[in-house]
């Protein structure tokens, strides 16, 4: 697969191009066409408005600031967590990923419940942080949300590109631990760090829920919140065109950032390493240092994950907002509201949809990972990253305008939307794992008489399994949580779980939404743990199973 036969590669490329055209290019072109035909006259005055300039400035500055903070945190996590002698390492490896499991709207809310006026710390200690509802709060919660993503991408990079001997060579050449980190480890992880930075930047450009929940009280508007406002109060065509124009503007900003980064990074990302390469550190550290690291990690996770999420779980079982979360006020009513016969029906539909979407996405992600190894395929990776920044509502509108004539209200259209939106999520981890697959193993398989796909199935699948599984899980989870696009695209008989639940109580009622998050998280966590155990058993070297698995299973993007 890394180097397909001369005939296979063009065919795969053609397949990817076809999917790209259907999922990304056509809908985007339709949107551009709509703006061009109907809104040419409005663009110039719109671009000149102060509000838009402020929003664009906020968006870009926020994305840059989040990237600047999330990258060091994520890199630190990756460096600390690759230490096999870290006390309680398997636990931490899972714990740092928890923010990924929770929809960000709920995460934003949980922070206010923990730290704002009348929140946890205010009630217990009289400590509160007014800035949580404002640019600083938006920034902080986004950083906490993005750090696990950086951790995942960088950890993969560390595992793929830093052989322990390279660090040992530095140490034995006279470099201390810090110098080795700077001159060797981080230098080698640089492509991964850069890739993570690009991903975080693009995701932050397109993020909506947290700026909306935490930024509004301070009058902090971003491009995405303006898009939301335009659509909300825009029965008139002008605001609709403005919303699409803003979304396309985001795409252009993202393209300007992603395309050069991908062009620069892609060739460097492809390194060939031995099959037994492990991302373990070269040297044991001092126990005291490890303990201090574990302590620091515990403190960070307590403040950023445990406290807010405890607030979340408590509000899922507390009768009403503003009541103390004591047993007297506990109730399962929110869970009963979420779990009605109607929602179970929709849940079945959602599960099916999510399974199909995740499976197709893993195939598509793998396809792009394969073809981008050739020069001709590199643009594909950049293109699919762009849909990541497109707000769900705009992407859905684009798909609806392009295919609504035939597919309006069908599950197929919802599936297309999921595929377009999540393709990059499936692609990035698989591409990372493919890096680690030595081509000789594939060559040996082909030389032993296996056809291209047989070779993939028999030889490549096993080492790639954790990454594929991780990508599958992330796509499955995101599809299950997805509400913006589905609530715009569904029709009679195709309501998804999240649509039914949110329709029954509008966004904003926290108790049921918290209950929904808890249910969905359990729904995902239980199979994830089972799969993790299963994969653990599949590992060829049973003597060291906890080395990398947790990280790879849950890898995001």
């Amino acid at each position, binding site marked *: 697969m890394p180097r397909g036969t001369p005939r296979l590669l063009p065919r795969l490329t053609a397949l990817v191009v076809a999917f790209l055209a259907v999922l990304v290019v056509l809908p985007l072109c339709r949107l551009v066409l709509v703006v061009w035909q109907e809104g040419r006259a409005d663009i110039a005055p719109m671009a000149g408005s102060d509000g838009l300039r402020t929003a664009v400035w906020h968006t870009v500055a926020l994305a840059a600031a989040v990237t600047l903070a999330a990258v060091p945190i994520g890199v630190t996590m990756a460096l600390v967590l690759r230490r096999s002698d870290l006390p309680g390492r398997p636990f931490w490896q899972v714990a740092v990923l928890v923010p990924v499991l929770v929809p960000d709207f709920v995460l934003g809310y949980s922070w206010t419940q923990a730290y704002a006026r009348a929140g946890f710390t205010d009630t217990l200690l009289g400590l509160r942080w007014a800035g949580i509802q404002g640019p600083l709060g938006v920034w902080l919660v986004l950083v906490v949300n993005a750090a696990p993503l950086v951790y995942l991408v960088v950890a993969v990079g560390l595992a793929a590109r830093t*052989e322990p*001997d*390279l660090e*040992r*060579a*530095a*140490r*034995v*050449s*006279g*470099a*201390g*631990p810090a*110098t080795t980190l700077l*001159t*060797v480890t981080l*230098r*080698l992880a*640089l492509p991964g760090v850069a890739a993570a930075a690009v991903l975080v930047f693009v995701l932050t450009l397109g993020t909506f829920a947290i700026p909306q929940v935490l930024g509004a009280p301070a009058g902090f508007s971003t491009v995405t919140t303006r898009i939301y406002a335009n659509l909300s109060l825009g029965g008139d065509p002008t605001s609709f065109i403005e919303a699409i124009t803003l979304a396309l503007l985001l795409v252009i900003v993202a393209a300007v950032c992603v395309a050069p980064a991908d062009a620069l990074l892609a060739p460097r990302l492809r*390194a060939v390493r*031995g099959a037994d390469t492990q991302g373990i550190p*070269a*040297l*044991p550290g*001092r126990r005291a240092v490890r303990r201090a690291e574990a302590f620091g990690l515990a403190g960070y996770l307590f403040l950023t994950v445990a406290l807010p999420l405890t607030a979340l779980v408590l509000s899922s079982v507390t009768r009403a907002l503003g009541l103390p979360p004591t047993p007297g006020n506990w109730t399962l009513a929110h869970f009963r509201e979420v779990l009605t016969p109607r929602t179970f029906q929709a849940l079945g539909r959602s599960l099916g949809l999510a399974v199909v979407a995740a499976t197709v996405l893993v195939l598509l992600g793998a396809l792009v990972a394969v073809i981008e190894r050739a020069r001709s395929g590199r643009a594909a990776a950049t293109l699919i990253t762009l849909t990541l920044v497109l707000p769900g509502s705009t992407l859905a509108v684009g798909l609806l305008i392009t295919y609504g004539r035939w597919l309006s209200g069908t599950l197929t259209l919802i599936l297309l939307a999921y595929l377009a939106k999540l393709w990059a999520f499936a692609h990035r981890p698989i591409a990372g794992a493919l890096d680690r697959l030595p081509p000789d193993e594939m060559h040996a398989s082909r030389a032993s008489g296996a056809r291209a796909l047989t070779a993939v199935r028999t030889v490549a699948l096993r080492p790639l399994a954790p990454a594929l599984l991780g990508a599958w899980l992330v796509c499955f989870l995101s599809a299950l949580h997805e509400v913006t696009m589905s609530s715009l695209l569904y029709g009679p008989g195709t309501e998804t779980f999240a649509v039914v639940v949110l329709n029954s109580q509008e966004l904003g009622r926290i108790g049921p939404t918290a209950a929904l998050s808890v249910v969905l998280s359990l729904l995902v966590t239980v199979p994830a743990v089972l799969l993790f155990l299963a994969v653990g058993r599949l590992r060829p070297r049973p*003597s*060291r199973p906890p080395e990398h698995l947790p990280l790879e299973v849950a890898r995001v993007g």
Partner: protein
Amino acid sequence: MSAEPALEVTDLVVSYDGTTALDRVTLSVRRGQVLALLGPSGSGKSTLLHAVAGFLVPAAGTVRLGGTTVAGDGRPVPPERRDLAMVFQNYALWPHLTALDTVAYPARRSGAGRAHARTEALEILERLRIAGLAGRKPAELSGGEQQRVGLARALARRPSLYLFDEPTAHLDTHVRGVFLAELVARQRDTGAAAVYATHDAEEALGLADQVALLHEGRLLQTGTPQQVYDQPADLFAARLSGPASVITAPDHDGGELLVRPGWARLGGPLKGELRAVWFRGPHSDYLVAGPLGELLIREPGPPQHEIGARVGWSLLRSWPLP
């Protein structure tokens, strides 16, 4: 020569997740001497080198470098503060640095300015006759060239002890000999000691002053190459240190004798049948089977007999195995 050995390892124990990788290993290397660590893969050679370099912390025992305890007595000294350099089996060249910057790296770490470190590095590259490669990165170098850069980096450190971890394992045969000669010559020039890990008996015997045989984390035998070759401690040590045949002792006491290929000659009173013949260029090897067992006999020149021929042979010397 100073009284303190360059390296002294005493009762060293290393264990990973409950399994013992090194079990009470004791050895020492004097200044200017080369110790070959000879053992099959998995015998603990790399583990021993890693413990000496400071890449892992031994469970028990001490490591002393030039009389200073670096492990086993209080906090272990980190690798960068141990007076040694290492050449790795996989070269361990940093993919982002050119050959020149790689070789300049140790000098930079000991505080030299960039320009000075580079000048020094270039001198070393010149000495190894690879100055032309200075601007290249590892991906643009052949295996032999990469390992030369690896050697240059170790030389740049100017240590009192070199650790060579199977440095020729990945090199082509023809490059190997040249590289080995270069390595030994350079190391001898500096007057420093060296530990050379290998699984190749010929290599070990040829370059070492002392050979230590390792098996499953234990030291089987230490001695000069000749001692190890002529008087191996047991059958395993005998097989490890070169081609070996074992036959029943002719003087009917039932003991077993080690016979090296050169220790017997064709022609003589003892009878046997020729089972196989290998032409090796300068000499030929004959596998002879007889009542005492099978043994390998080495004679100069091309093969003289056909397979299946009845031949006579005589035993020149032997070593009784315990």
